[in-house]
Protein backbone atom coordinates (compact mmCIF):
# COMPACT_ATOMS: atom_id res chain seq x y z
CA UNK A 1 0.00 0.00 0.00
CA UNK A 2 1.17 3.51 -0.77
CA UNK A 3 1.90 5.31 2.44
CA UNK A 4 3.81 7.82 4.53
CA UNK A 5 6.35 6.27 6.90
CA UNK A 6 8.05 7.96 9.83
CA UNK A 7 11.03 6.61 11.71
CA UNK A 8 11.51 6.23 14.53
CA UNK A 9 8.04 6.29 16.12
CA UNK A 10 9.56 7.30 19.45
CA UNK A 11 12.80 9.24 19.88
CA UNK A 12 14.52 10.24 23.10
CA UNK A 13 17.30 12.78 23.02
CA UNK A 14 19.23 14.85 25.52
CA UNK A 15 18.97 18.58 25.92
CA UNK A 16 21.17 20.18 23.27
CA UNK A 17 22.01 16.96 21.43
CA UNK A 18 21.19 17.13 17.70
CA UNK A 19 18.50 14.77 16.49
CA UNK A 20 17.15 13.82 13.06
CA UNK A 21 13.68 12.54 12.30
CA UNK A 22 12.95 10.72 9.07
CA UNK A 23 9.97 10.61 6.72
CA UNK A 24 9.56 8.59 3.56
CA UNK A 25 6.66 8.22 1.14
CA UNK A 26 5.65 5.82 -1.59
CA UNK A 27 2.91 8.13 -2.93
CA UNK A 28 5.29 9.98 -5.28
CA UNK A 29 3.89 13.29 -4.07
CA UNK A 30 5.67 16.50 -4.93
CA UNK A 31 4.93 18.27 -1.66
CA UNK A 32 6.14 17.20 1.79
CA UNK A 33 5.36 18.94 5.07
CA UNK A 34 6.62 18.86 8.64
CA UNK A 35 4.28 19.73 11.51
CA UNK A 36 4.95 20.07 15.22
CA UNK A 37 2.12 19.02 17.55
CA UNK A 38 2.53 19.70 21.24
CA UNK A 39 0.42 17.92 23.79
CA UNK A 40 -3.30 18.72 23.47
CA UNK A 41 -2.65 21.26 20.71
CA UNK A 42 -3.29 21.46 17.01
CA UNK A 43 -0.53 20.60 14.53
CA UNK A 44 1.55 23.61 13.56
CA UNK A 45 3.26 23.77 10.18
CA UNK A 46 7.03 24.20 10.42
CA UNK A 47 7.93 24.12 6.73
CA UNK A 48 7.24 22.34 3.48
CA UNK A 49 9.00 21.34 0.29
CA UNK A 50 7.46 21.76 -3.13
CA UNK A 51 9.80 19.45 -5.04
CA UNK A 52 13.18 20.87 -4.04
CA UNK A 53 11.86 24.31 -3.16
CA UNK A 54 12.01 24.83 0.59
CA UNK A 55 9.32 27.02 2.21
CA UNK A 56 9.88 27.99 5.82
CA UNK A 57 7.09 29.34 7.99
CA UNK A 58 7.90 32.78 9.35
CA UNK A 59 7.73 31.72 12.99
CA UNK A 60 9.69 28.48 12.71
CA UNK A 61 12.78 28.72 14.93
CA UNK A 62 16.21 28.53 13.30
CA UNK A 63 16.87 25.49 15.46
CA UNK A 64 14.72 23.49 13.02
CA UNK A 65 16.14 22.57 9.63
CA UNK A 66 15.06 20.21 6.90
CA UNK A 67 16.56 18.26 4.02
CA UNK A 68 14.94 16.57 1.07
CA UNK A 69 17.54 14.56 -0.84
CA UNK A 70 14.99 13.06 -3.25
CA UNK A 71 11.23 12.81 -3.87
CA UNK A 72 10.75 9.97 -1.41
CA UNK A 73 12.61 11.20 1.66
CA UNK A 74 12.49 14.23 3.89
CA UNK A 75 14.37 14.81 7.15
CA UNK A 76 13.76 17.10 10.09
CA UNK A 77 16.91 18.17 11.93
CA UNK A 78 16.73 19.77 15.35
CA UNK A 79 20.15 21.25 15.96
CA UNK A 80 19.96 21.86 19.70
CA UNK A 81 16.75 20.46 21.18
CA UNK A 82 15.32 22.21 24.17
CA UNK A 83 12.74 20.96 26.63
CA UNK A 84 10.13 22.98 24.75
CA UNK A 85 10.76 20.99 21.59
CA UNK A 86 9.27 17.84 23.07
CA UNK A 87 6.31 17.10 20.83
CA UNK A 88 4.84 14.82 18.20
CA UNK A 89 6.33 15.57 14.79
CA UNK A 90 4.08 14.79 11.86
CA UNK A 91 5.11 14.41 8.25
CA UNK A 92 2.55 14.80 5.47
CA UNK A 93 2.55 14.69 1.69
CA UNK A 94 0.31 15.95 -1.06
CA UNK A 95 0.17 16.48 -4.77
CA UNK A 96 0.60 20.08 -5.82
CA UNK A 97 -2.62 22.03 -6.39
CA UNK A 98 -4.02 21.08 -9.79
CA UNK A 99 -7.39 21.52 -11.36
CA UNK A 100 -9.66 18.53 -11.66
CA UNK A 101 -11.86 17.68 -14.63
CA UNK A 102 -13.57 20.60 -16.36
CA UNK A 103 -11.46 23.10 -14.48
CA UNK A 104 -12.84 22.09 -11.11
CA UNK A 105 -11.31 23.05 -7.77
CA UNK A 106 -7.77 22.23 -6.93
CA UNK A 107 -7.59 19.05 -4.90
CA UNK A 108 -4.61 18.63 -2.68
CA UNK A 109 -5.44 16.48 0.31
CA UNK A 110 -2.58 15.94 2.73
CA UNK A 111 -1.74 12.40 3.78
CA UNK A 112 -0.13 12.07 7.18
CA UNK A 113 2.36 9.63 8.61
CA UNK A 114 1.95 8.13 12.10
CA UNK A 115 4.25 10.69 13.69
CA UNK A 116 7.43 10.59 15.78
CA UNK A 117 7.07 11.42 19.45
CA UNK A 118 10.18 13.27 20.62
CA UNK A 119 11.17 13.33 24.28
CA UNK A 120 13.92 15.70 25.43
CA UNK A 121 15.64 14.84 28.71
Amino acid at each position, binding site marked *: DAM*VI*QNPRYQVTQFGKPVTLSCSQTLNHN*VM*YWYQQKS*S*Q*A*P*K*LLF*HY*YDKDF*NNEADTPDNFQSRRPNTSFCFLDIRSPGLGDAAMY*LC*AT*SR*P*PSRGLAG*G*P*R*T*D*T*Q*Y*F*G*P*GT*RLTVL
Partner: protein
Amino acid sequence: AQSVTQLDSQVPVFEEAPVELRCNYSSSVSVYLFWYVQYPNQGLQLLLKYLSGSTLVKGINGFEAEFNKSQTSFHLRKPSVHISDTAEYFCAVSPVGAAGNKLTFGGGTRVLVKP
Protein backbone atom coordinates in the same frame (compact mmCIF):
# COMPACT_ATOMS: atom_id res chain seq x y z
CA ALA B 1 -4.57 34.67 6.98
CA GLN B 2 -6.99 32.06 8.21
CA SER B 3 -8.11 31.01 11.67
CA VAL B 4 -10.19 28.07 12.83
CA THR B 5 -12.14 27.79 16.07
CA GLN B 6 -13.45 24.55 17.44
CA LEU B 7 -15.89 25.58 20.09
CA ASP B 8 -15.74 22.44 22.21
CA SER B 9 -12.44 21.11 23.51
CA GLN B 10 -14.06 17.92 24.84
CA VAL B 11 -17.30 16.16 24.02
CA PRO B 12 -18.41 13.18 26.09
CA VAL B 13 -21.13 11.12 24.42
CA PHE B 14 -22.81 7.79 25.05
CA GLU B 15 -22.48 4.95 22.58
CA GLU B 16 -25.16 4.98 19.85
CA ALA B 17 -26.01 8.63 20.60
CA PRO B 18 -25.55 11.35 17.96
CA VAL B 19 -22.67 13.76 18.12
CA GLU B 20 -21.98 17.18 16.59
CA LEU B 21 -18.57 18.85 16.61
CA ARG B 22 -18.62 22.55 15.87
CA CYS B 23 -16.14 24.38 13.67
CA ASN B 24 -16.09 28.03 12.64
CA TYR B 25 -13.47 29.69 10.52
CA SER B 26 -12.32 33.13 9.50
CA SER B 27 -10.66 33.96 6.19
CA SER B 28 -10.34 36.89 3.81
CA VAL B 29 -10.29 34.47 0.84
CA SER B 30 -12.25 31.40 -0.15
CA VAL B 31 -11.13 28.22 1.54
CA TYR B 32 -11.32 24.49 1.31
CA LEU B 33 -12.44 22.76 4.52
CA PHE B 34 -11.37 19.49 6.05
CA TRP B 35 -12.02 17.28 9.05
CA TYR B 36 -9.27 14.99 10.27
CA VAL B 37 -9.36 12.36 13.02
CA GLN B 38 -6.40 11.44 15.21
CA TYR B 39 -6.42 8.24 17.24
CA PRO B 40 -4.04 8.02 20.22
CA ASN B 41 -0.38 8.06 19.21
CA GLN B 42 -1.21 8.08 15.53
CA GLY B 43 -1.11 10.53 12.67
CA LEU B 44 -4.08 12.34 11.20
CA GLN B 45 -6.56 10.59 8.92
CA LEU B 46 -8.84 12.51 6.57
CA LEU B 47 -12.53 12.07 7.39
CA LEU B 48 -14.00 14.34 4.73
CA LYS B 49 -13.43 17.53 2.80
CA TYR B 50 -15.41 20.30 1.15
CA LEU B 51 -14.03 21.73 -2.08
CA SER B 52 -17.14 22.94 -3.93
CA GLY B 53 -20.64 21.86 -4.90
CA SER B 54 -23.12 20.36 -2.47
CA THR B 55 -22.75 21.83 0.98
CA LEU B 56 -23.46 18.47 2.64
CA VAL B 57 -20.37 16.30 2.52
CA LYS B 58 -20.28 12.62 3.45
CA GLY B 59 -17.09 11.06 4.71
CA ILE B 60 -15.77 7.81 6.05
CA ASN B 61 -17.02 5.95 9.13
CA GLY B 62 -20.53 7.43 8.84
CA PHE B 63 -19.49 11.06 9.40
CA GLU B 64 -20.91 14.00 7.48
CA ALA B 65 -20.41 17.75 7.59
CA GLU B 66 -22.30 20.75 6.31
CA PHE B 67 -20.67 23.87 4.95
CA ASN B 68 -22.50 27.08 5.77
CA LYS B 69 -20.88 30.01 4.03
CA SER B 70 -22.99 32.73 5.65
CA GLN B 71 -22.14 31.44 9.11
CA THR B 72 -18.59 30.44 8.15
CA SER B 73 -19.13 27.07 9.76
CA PHE B 74 -18.34 23.46 8.92
CA HIS B 75 -19.88 21.32 11.66
CA LEU B 76 -19.24 17.58 11.77
CA ARG B 77 -21.98 15.10 12.69
CA LYS B 78 -22.52 11.42 13.19
CA PRO B 79 -26.00 10.04 13.95
CA SER B 80 -24.80 7.13 16.10
CA VAL B 81 -21.30 6.84 17.57
CA HIS B 82 -19.31 3.75 18.46
CA ILE B 83 -16.69 3.23 21.12
CA SER B 84 -14.13 3.19 18.31
CA ASP B 85 -14.96 6.82 17.50
CA THR B 86 -13.12 7.90 20.64
CA ALA B 87 -10.41 10.15 19.24
CA GLU B 88 -9.43 13.76 18.66
CA TYR B 89 -11.01 15.56 15.73
CA PHE B 90 -9.45 18.51 13.95
CA CYS B 91 -11.13 20.96 11.63
CA ALA B 92 -8.81 22.62 9.11
CA VAL B 93 -8.90 25.06 6.20
CA SER B 94 -6.62 25.86 3.31
CA PRO B 95 -6.90 28.88 1.02
CA VAL B 96 -8.21 28.17 -2.46
CA GLY B 97 -5.46 28.05 -5.02
CA ALA B 98 -2.61 28.24 -2.51
CA ALA B 99 0.52 26.52 -3.68
CA GLY B 100 1.31 23.62 -1.43
CA ASN B 101 -2.06 23.47 0.31
CA LYS B 102 -1.15 25.09 3.63
CA LEU B 103 -3.51 23.84 6.31
CA THR B 104 -4.58 25.86 9.33
CA PHE B 105 -5.97 23.67 12.09
CA GLY B 106 -8.41 24.36 14.88
CA GLY B 107 -7.51 23.44 18.43
CA GLY B 108 -9.16 20.03 18.25
CA THR B 109 -12.14 18.40 19.94
CA ARG B 110 -11.58 15.32 22.02
CA VAL B 111 -14.51 12.89 21.75
CA LEU B 112 -14.94 10.33 24.48
CA VAL B 113 -17.57 7.70 23.74
CA LYS B 114 -18.92 6.02 26.86
CA PRO B 115 -20.61 2.61 26.91
